[in-house]
């Protein structure tokens, strides 16, 4: 068979490479490393210098909008696409030159890609049959896996007879059969309805803890990313915007994109002064990195709707930071909380004012004044004790915020 020639060549090449230079210096707990990977289709660059590690037993989520390049990263790790530069290292073994079938990664495709003409147990045993394992061993492994994914009663069924969740479990078991180096999930819950999705998410999380195999998930759903990942990498236009724990990503976003992609975020222009930040007429205390931010720099401050405190009186709690006075413009009830949109007039800091839109602050005053919309959310108890109505004048304060340098336009 001519196809047999290729793996031999690839293996020889690998051996040569290992003899020529010391193996890639990655610590053993790194299960998967993607190092400086870039990818082009013709002249368009779709990935640029992607670098990250996944530790043993860790779950990393690649979060990004469609077209961000996250699927391409997954396909490069699996060996279904070739990178333009960079390499992929699995447990210390450089697999960049190896074809997909020699990498030993487990891919759970979005549509699961179960073999339609094979029963559940044949699907699960496929990897071992291909590897010419003994019949007894295959039967034993398949039994164990059927038990693990709780499909013992469905072993003789065909994929078309299973529900979406069951099919997904078969797909996972099928990869676990050959002890994959890493599990790659391509939009694993895309084809399911919301309720099943939430349920399956927890199931998979529990399963992964049990088998302790590192996993990389791809999703565009931020809630899914925060819940599934030990760490989350936010991908935008082919590069990693930020990588960190869900807590870090949500609470201290590194870029404006991250801040706005993960949930609602308010952004205000600010100027860096020696020991504080100037936001309009307000001064916010800030301990800024002197290296990164210089006096007079324009920055943005980001805060979440739940970080905003609105008060009808002039009293602001000492641990809150007063921003200014605003007009209530819209109030909507969103189940667990109330969402209030207020309009904050712009004042001062003209040197940094960038994306202002002019508004008529009230219908009574005809002067157009630049103003900024701010979204605040208030939990039920607060919403019912201090009622607000449209047109109310409120004092806006924030409990916490993150400072972002002005985003340089990244060329991709």
């Amino acid at each position: 068979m001519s196809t047999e020639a290729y793996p031999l060549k690839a293996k020889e090449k690998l051996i040569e490479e290992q003899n020529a230079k010391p193996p890639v210096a990655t610590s053993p707990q790194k299960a998967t490393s993607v190092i400086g990977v870039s990818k082009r289709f013709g002249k368009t660059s779709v990935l640029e210098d992607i670098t990250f590690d996944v530790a043993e037993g860790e779950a990393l989520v690649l979060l990004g909008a469609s077209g961000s390049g996250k699927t391409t990263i997954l396909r490069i790790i699996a060996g279904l696409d070739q990178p333009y530069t960079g390499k992929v290292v699995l447990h210390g073994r450089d697999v960049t030159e190896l074809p997909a079938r020699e990498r030993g990664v487990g891919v759970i495709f979005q549509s699961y890609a179960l073999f339609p003409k094979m029963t559940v147990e044949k699907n699960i045993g496929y990897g071992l049959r291909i590897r010419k394992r003994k019949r007894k061993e295959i039967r034993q492994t398949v039994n164990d896996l059927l038990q693990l994914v709780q499909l013992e009663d469905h072993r003789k069924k065909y994929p078309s007879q299973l529900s979406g969740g069951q099919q997904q479990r078969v797909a996972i078991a099928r990869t676990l059969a050959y002890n994959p180096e890493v599990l790659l999930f391509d939009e694993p819950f895309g084809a399911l309805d919301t309720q099943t999705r939430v349920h399956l998410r927890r199931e998979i999380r529990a399963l992964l803890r049990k088998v302790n195999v590192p996993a990389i998930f791809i999703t565009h759903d931020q809630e899914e990313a925060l819940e599934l990942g030990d760490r989350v990498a936010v991908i935008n236009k082919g590069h990693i915007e930020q990588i960190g724990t869900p807590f870090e990503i949500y609470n201290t976003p590194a870029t404006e994109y991250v801040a706005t992609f993960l949930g609602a975020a308010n952004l205000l222009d600010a100027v860096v002064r020696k020991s504080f930040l100037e936001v309009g007429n307000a001064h916010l205390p800030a301990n800024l990195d002197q290296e990164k931010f210089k006096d007079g720099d324009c920055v943005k401050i980001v805060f979440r709707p739940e970080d905003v405190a609105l008060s009808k009186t002039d009293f602001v709690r000492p641990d809150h930071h007063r921003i200014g006075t605003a007009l209530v413009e819209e109030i909507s009830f969103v189940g667990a909380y109330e969402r209030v949109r207020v309009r904050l007039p712009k004042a001062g800091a003209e040197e940094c004012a960038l994306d202002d839109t002019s508004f008529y602050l009230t219908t009574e005053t005809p002067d157009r004044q630049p103003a900024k919309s701010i979204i605040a959310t208030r939990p039920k108890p607060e919403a019912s004790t201090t009622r607000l109505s449209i047109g109310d004048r409120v004092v806006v304060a924030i409990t916490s915020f993150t400072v972002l340098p002005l985003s340089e336009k990244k060329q991709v």
Partner: protein
Amino acid sequence: MRHVRGFDVVRPLSIGMLVFMMLPLVFLPLLSIFIFGTSNGLDKFWAALTAPEAVFALKLSMATSFWATVFNVLFGLFASYVLSRYNFWGRNALIVTISLPTAIPTAVAGFALLLLWGPYGTLGRFLAPQGIQIMFTAAAIILANIFVTFPLAFGVIKPVFDTMSRSLEEASATIGATRWQTFWHVTLPSLRGAIVSGALLTFARAVGEFGSTILVSGNLAGRTQTAPLYIFAKFNEGQIEAANAIAIVLALFSFLIFSVLFFARDWLDVD
């Protein structure tokens, strides 16, 4: 038309009309083969059927059709794989060319083969001095059958290839299968239905082939005479019973093949 007390008049009328129209066009001609063939008694029919030349003609038809089918199914598989997996310049031209034999009159096909392989043909004139003679042999019949049934298996298999999800093969590769293993365990099972129906179509068409066969075979009784040629020859000699016996066999045979195609559809498609 109107509904008369919930009774749809159009329904029985249109069904009746359909059957009535088919009577002189299809049913009666077929029926008359059987009526005529058995009118002189079953023993006469059996004698006509077991005449050495008749048996030979049937066997030759089956054998040549079989080899043409084997070739065209394998070729159809290969062509479908190449033409649905790879996109290249001239791909559509190839697809059209493969499908072309459907539209060519079979006599033209036979004539074309003669002009290529015949003793004075483009290639044949170089082969004849070597003592290689292709025309007027069983090989010529197979060649003609291949030519005429060329697009049939391809036409059934290619659409299945086109709609087959690429991720099945990718999944198989990431699991660790070689290309060959993937083809054998994943791709081929999904094509089983298409292969069987493509083969049956090809075979049925090849067994009935007349126009091209009569040109390339030489129509030598007991040597290169296929079943349809036998019918034609016996009819010309005025031996209606002999022609009729074979006609009955061929009619039953195609009836059988199309029943399988029709009633085993579910089995062929799903699982």
